[in-house]
């Protein structure tokens, strides 16, 4: 068993998958924690779906799906961010935009004819198909996003916890929200390479949401979130090698199991719910 796993680890496509998966997992875990405390998980979900139009559109025009998705989600994220704290209250608007985005994506897919395979890859992920170029892009984008967060996460946390006080101290809530949503759009795009657009929720919200249920401080939440995300991606990819089942299945299954365990633990051991 161990020998077999080590053998898989020597394959290029497995190494690429682990590298891209790890970076996306780390970024998703960190950004996801802010999604939880800012209460914008629906927007995160929507950004991925809006990205579908970009991805299928890019294929139609002969570009890489990653770039198309990145472009359109970043723009959508910036617009959502500028609407600031109203975002939580505009679920109808976000929902309608995400529907039309999926609709247009479907149209692009039909126009392209015969690329149904690429649709599956975009929707459910194709981590074993990641190329060296894509890994390079992932490294650059993930590091840039984490770097940006390192610069303004203190302000972002303040504005997320106590926006009105932050505004009175001179923080630009719209500016912070906009910057964060752009980083969220990048994270969602990178994570969708691993598990696909439909399953982005798992890796962006899952680890962070579970960590938020368990941890009492900011840094422990971020740490636990990263550990959960990395474990899910690594174990998921290796199990996929062994079983030949899709990695997206394994990653979602692992995270779901951790989630159920956490909920039971919070309810029956910590008695957090009153």
């Amino acid at each position, binding site marked *: 068993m161990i020998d077999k796993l080590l053998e898989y680890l020597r394959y290029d496509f497995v190494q690429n998958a682990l590298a891209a998966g790890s970076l996306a997992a780390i970024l998703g875990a960190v950004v996801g924690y802010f999604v939880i405390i800012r209460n914008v998980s629906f927007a995160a979900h929507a950004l991925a779906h809006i990205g579908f139009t970009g991805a299928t559109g890019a294929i139609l025009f002969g570009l890489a799906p990653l770039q198309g998705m990145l472009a359109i989600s970043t723009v959508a994220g910036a617009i959502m961010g500028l609407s600031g704290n109203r975002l939580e209250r505009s679920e109808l608007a976000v929902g309608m935009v995400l529907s039309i985005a999926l609709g247009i994506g479907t149209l692009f897919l039909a126009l392209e004819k015969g690329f149904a395979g690429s649709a599956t890859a975009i929707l459910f992920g194709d981590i074993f198909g990641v190329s060296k170029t894509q890994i390079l892009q992932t490294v650059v984008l993930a590091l840039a996003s984490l770097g940006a967060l390192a610069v303004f996460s203190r302000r972002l946390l303040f504005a997320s*916890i106590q926006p009105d*006080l932050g505004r*009175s101290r001179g923080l630009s809530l719209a500016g912070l929200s906009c910057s964060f949503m752009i980083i969220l759009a990048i994270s969602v795009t990178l994570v969708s390479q691993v598990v696909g657009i439909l399953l982005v929720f798992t890796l962006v919200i899952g680890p962070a949401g579970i960590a*938020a249920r368990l941890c009492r401080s900011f840094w422990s939440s971020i740490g636990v979130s990263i550990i959960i995300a990395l474990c899910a991606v690594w174990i998921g990819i290796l199990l996929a090698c062994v079983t030949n089942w899709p990695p997206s299945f394994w990653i979602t299954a692992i995270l779901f199991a951790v989630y159920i365990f956490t909920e039971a633990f919070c309810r029956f051991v*910590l008695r*957090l719910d009153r």
Partner: protein
Amino acid sequence: MVSALSIKDLKVRLGNRTILEDVNAEITPGEFIGIFGPNGAGKSTLVGALLGLCPIRSGTVELFGQPPGKTNAEIGYMPQSRASLESTALSARSLVAAVQEGTRWGVPWNSRSARDSVDRAITLAGANEYADRPFSILSGGEKQRITLAQSLLGNPRLLILDEPLASLDPKNQMRLVERVSHVRQETGATILFIAHDVNPLLGTMDRILYVAGGTAQLGSVDEIMTSESLSRLYGTSIDVIRAQGRLFVVAAEGHVTESARHD
């Protein structure tokens, strides 16, 4: 001595509607001022003007001799809104720590001395007992203490508390007022306490700023809380009824206004 707050002939317009005009007030450092008035009378607009968030049409506002917006680091503002952190285990202490020097760049890492400031603010707000519990499971009164602790960071000289008693039961209202009074004694901070009901603050506040009828009037409880004075302010006939040491504001038509909304 320079006034904590000096308002002269203030006029505030939002869009093309005049919200407040002819507002005059001189508040000395260390005073405890209760701010009252009906919904939509302009209490929040007044606070916005003090914080430099609402543009001033005419007149002047000075906080410790400085124009609004210049001294916000010395103002502790306790907003009505609170983070909704349902189903997270983030501790109350972490929430206060998140606000400590929150306008700095970088990552939210607090030094030893910053953590000490957080601990001091929590102690001053009287929230030590439950500071390490998850914020989401605290009671309404406990959550308000944590929000108070957030506003106390940075040793403010002026505290603006925006309806901190809303949605608290009478017992917790009394406790919070006592705690704010304690904060004033300990720090000497000037307090602007916005509330619906006059009664929980009777005996604690020094003076009242009553906002109604597009303007505001500052005076002692006995000056402001009379039928004549409030009738003039509201521009309609108002009765102030005293019963068992408490005050009730009743419109002549018989509609009981906010001050009587006492659970």
